[in-house]
């Protein structure tokens, strides 16, 4: 089973972990939302929690934020218990909820100033407003902001207190591509400045772009964990495509390739090889082409994406 080659979750956490969740179980009215979930987040890292809606991402995050009491398992945030030590944790942790959380009547900048005034060393509100591109709508009541502006304000509210750790629940949901890029840049800056970031997403490109480590969640459990590289490299095989003259003798090609490789002519002149695609294999293919007088055109090595990984792990589409 190729999955076994994936880097699996380590349940023993280093003591300095920013977030340490082990065996978390959470049920709502008999329905199990989180079912023995493990998560370790190193300080200063960006961790993406990737999975479809209903996978248990938000429940896990909200348990870490102290909103929910676990039915079983252990949750430590910055070494503390999110519920017992809530008063000590709240100033140190920034929270962006999936939606809402702001007075609809309050103006954008007013909400930010209010949140800033609850903290000892807040960021400069005017700078934060400019950085998030909210300058033109600082005086607009929250309810009249666009969806993207509301998202960015919620993000700003999570950051203004200069937290050590931020939980961002779908920070780019509903953003246009530019705003999405701007948010990604911001997350990278947070990381550069030493802030630990835990974000949920169901966009694989986001996880690939931002995360040091990705936890793939489904059915309330972490089904794979690792760096985006590890996840995409491990497990199933990669693909090499090329085009050439139709009707090549693939049998002779396969003899030159390692065992377990496959080759098909998808349509006349369009070929697909699968197997362990490494420099050696590429060299074998091109030299075989040279021997057979084939001008291999448009050679493409395809890496797996997190979406492929997810499909293999669950047989489900990642996007709900």
């Amino acid at each position, binding site marked *: 089973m190729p999955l076994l080659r994936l880097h699996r979750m380590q349940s023993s956490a280093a003591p300095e972990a920013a977030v340490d969740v082990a065996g978390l179980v959470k049920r709502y009215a008999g329905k199990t939302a989180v079912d023995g979930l493990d998560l370790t987040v190193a300080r200063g890292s960006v961790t993406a929690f990737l999975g479809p809606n209903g996978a248990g991402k938000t429940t896990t995050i909200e348990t870490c934020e102290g909103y929910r009491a676990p039915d079983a398992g252990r949750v430590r945030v910055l070494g503390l218990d999110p519920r017992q030590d809530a008063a000590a944790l709240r100033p140190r942790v920034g929270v962006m909820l999936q939606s809402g959380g702001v007075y609809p009547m309050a103006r954008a900048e007013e909400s930010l100033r209010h949140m800033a005034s609850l903290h*000892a060393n807040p960021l400069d509100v005017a700078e934060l407003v400019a950085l998030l591109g909210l300058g033109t709508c600082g005086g607009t009541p929250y309810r009249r902001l666009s969806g993207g502006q509301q998202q960015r304000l919620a993000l700003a509210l999570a950051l203004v207190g200069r937290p*050590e750790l931020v939980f961002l629940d779908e920070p780019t949901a509903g953003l246009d591509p530019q705003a999405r890029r701007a948010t990604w840049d911001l997350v990278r800056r947070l990381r550069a400045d030493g*802030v630990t970031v835990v974000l949920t997403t169901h966009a694989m490109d986001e996880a690939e772009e931002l995360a040091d480590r990705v936890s793939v969640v489904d059915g309330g459990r972490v089904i794979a964990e690792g760096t985006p590289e590890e996840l995409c490299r491990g497990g199933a095989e990669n693909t090499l495509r090329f085009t050439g003259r139709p009707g090549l003798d693939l049998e002779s090609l396969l003899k030159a390739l390692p065992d377990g490789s496959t080759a098909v002519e998808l349509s006349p002149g369009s070929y697909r090889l699968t197997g362990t695609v490494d420099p050696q294999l590429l060299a074998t293919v091109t030299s075989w082409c040279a021997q057979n007088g084939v001008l291999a055109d448009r050679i493409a090595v395809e890496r797996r994406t997190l979406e492929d990984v997810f499909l293999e792990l669950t047989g489900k589409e990642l996007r709900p």
Partner: protein
Amino acid sequence: MSSGTFTPAPGAAPLPRMIAAHAGLELRTLLRNGEQLLLTVVIPTLLLVLFSAVDIVDTGAGARVDFLAPGILALAVLSTAFTGQAIGTGFERRYGVLKRLGASPLPRSGLLAAKTCAVLVVELLQVVLLTVVALALGWSPAGLSASGAATAVLLLLLGTAAFSSLGLLMAGTLRAEATLAGANLVFLLLLVGGGVVVPLERFPGGVGGVLELLPVSALSDGLRDVLQSGAGSAWPQLLVLAVWTVVGSAAAARFFKWE
């Protein structure tokens, strides 16, 4: 912003600063809200003017405004501490504001203190405005003794506490829309049946005796004893308000749902 902008420097502001900041936000959003102002300022003022000028209800011997002014002051407290607070908090809950604040450094006790501060400031504005209007309408309050003045302040504060606890109980247990409808309905019913503009003696049989136990009746009665009759104390009414406060606070603490 340069690099290092987000370098962590966490910490909560001192509690008094947090409370002041939050009370300020509550107050500003309250004063900017047209519906709230209608409820807390326009309606009590209109009722005071209308019922003083026109002989709609038999308010007994003496100038009508002398009976009405204490009742309208009680109504003002009801409108802000109960109705306004219930509706405002109900929608804060609905919009996730309470949830988000729960993850901020402001503790729940601080949130409650800030809400109370905002309510008291609005009430102060109401009392000043309504007193000026009542005086203009010919109100001649009884000469206040020191103990009478203290009793009046105590009545207003205990009334605020009782109404606040009941308003928060409603906001924390019902859906926002139900709270909106319910809080307005209660306001209307108490306006009629709470001794605000209609003397409780006008109600038949034992009904008046039961209505006296309502918090708004206790507040308006107590204020009337002090401001109209010149009494130096109003212990029975204070007792009624204290019981409502204890019951309301206990129920709110037990049943309030933050999200």
